[in-house]
């Protein structure tokens, strides 16, 4: 599974980091880093994080690379 975070929309609420700490990471207090290709055992967490993002900044797709978004 691939994910893309629209960093223009992301407001660094960090909900995703709480819900999927292996996939998303906060550097300092406001910079969000993420793993674009989600390992199999983290997919459910990544989906929960996408659903909970307050500004819906996380896009998930089974095979799509960043270019398709």
């Amino acid at each position, binding site marked *: 599974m691939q994910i893309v975070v629209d960093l223009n929309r992301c407001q660094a*609420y*960090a909900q995703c980091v*709480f*819900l999927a700490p292996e996939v998303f990471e906060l550097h*300092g*207090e406001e910079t969000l880093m993420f793993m674009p290709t989600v390992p199999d055992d983290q997919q459910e967490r990544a989906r929960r994080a996408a*659903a909970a993002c307050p*500004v819906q900044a996380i896009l998930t797709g089974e095979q799509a690379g960043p270019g398709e978004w």
Partner: protein
Amino acid sequence: MPPDTLRERITDYANRADPYPLYAELHENGVTRQNDGSYLVGTYHEIAALLHDPRISSDSRHRTDPETVPRIRREGQSMAFIGLDDPEHDRLRRITMRPFGPPHTPHRIDALRADITRICDELLDGLRDKDRIDIVEEFAYPLPVTVICRLLGVPQADVPRIHAWANDIIASLDVTPGRIGEHQLNAGVEAREAMAEYLGDLSDRRRTAPSDDMLSALVHDSGPDGPLTRSELMANATLLLIAGHETTVNLITNGTLTFLRHPDAYRQLRDEPELMPRAVEELLRYEPPVHLLPQRTPVTDVEVCDVTIPQGAPLILVLAAGNRDPLRFDHPDRFDPAREDNQHLGFGSGIHSCFGAPLARVETQIALNALLPHLEHFQLAEDPPPYRRSPILRGPRHLPITRTSGT
């Protein structure tokens, strides 16, 4: 009815089960001055803007009339960050976040998942053979209480004491001071003090004998901002304990009620549990646990929708009305568990947006996923159920459900 009585009508217990027609009046009337001098806002964009407006304070000391805020602590005690403004709010929130979440502790909430699942399963096991269940007493309340106590490091044996104090504190919070008796108010202040003392003592014990809980981390692992003072720790740990008690219970209960009222959504979520995270966001919009924020005050005159809200006046933001604003959400009165555009106000917004939101989400997602299969042969015993008194933390006091015959 006149818009200047809306606050009175929202507070009126007779409207607790269905306040939504009143919220529709808020949408029509914009910002309204109430006959007691407070200002009510229930439209989405205005609430969101005010929650991001540095001229709006959460510190009740900015009120012109101190009688408009419930008295919750004695002179000289520290204040919890929910009632402070930046930079003090930011400093305390940052120190408290360090042992709770990212960037310093990104795994604590995720690591609670297994515990939460096990607590849910144990509670549900105890209900297996019953024909009548009170969802509040037997499931929705014990779960978050157990979890927040475990997170902070409160021993299981002390949970009943915490529970009793929390009840007194909540009973003393009402939107209109004067409406509840002096006695109830004092019981609330005393319970808060007892809880704070208890947490102070517990953190002292963790100082000498640390464990892997959040209180131990708070006293041992201070970051660049330094540690909390003992008094700050007492006030803010009390805040976490109370917030962890009295909100998630409403979300789980409202979720159960809403699914029992919407059989199609019930079947869909029971069969496709992976849709639950989004459904929980919709519950936070459609039936939020916190209906209004009664504690804001403008520090200077502020104009909103052609109304000037004077400096020092009580400003009440009705989050639950903003969540149903037709100018923001399509079909706002429809429960749509797959709703995509859903930037609800259930956890507030801006600098005070809910600290515990990730924990509340994880708990409620797990709880409802575990509960739904058990509801198969149950129906609501009463609809509407009896509600708690509070118009702020609004939710059912009991949610009795009964087994349907023939199964």
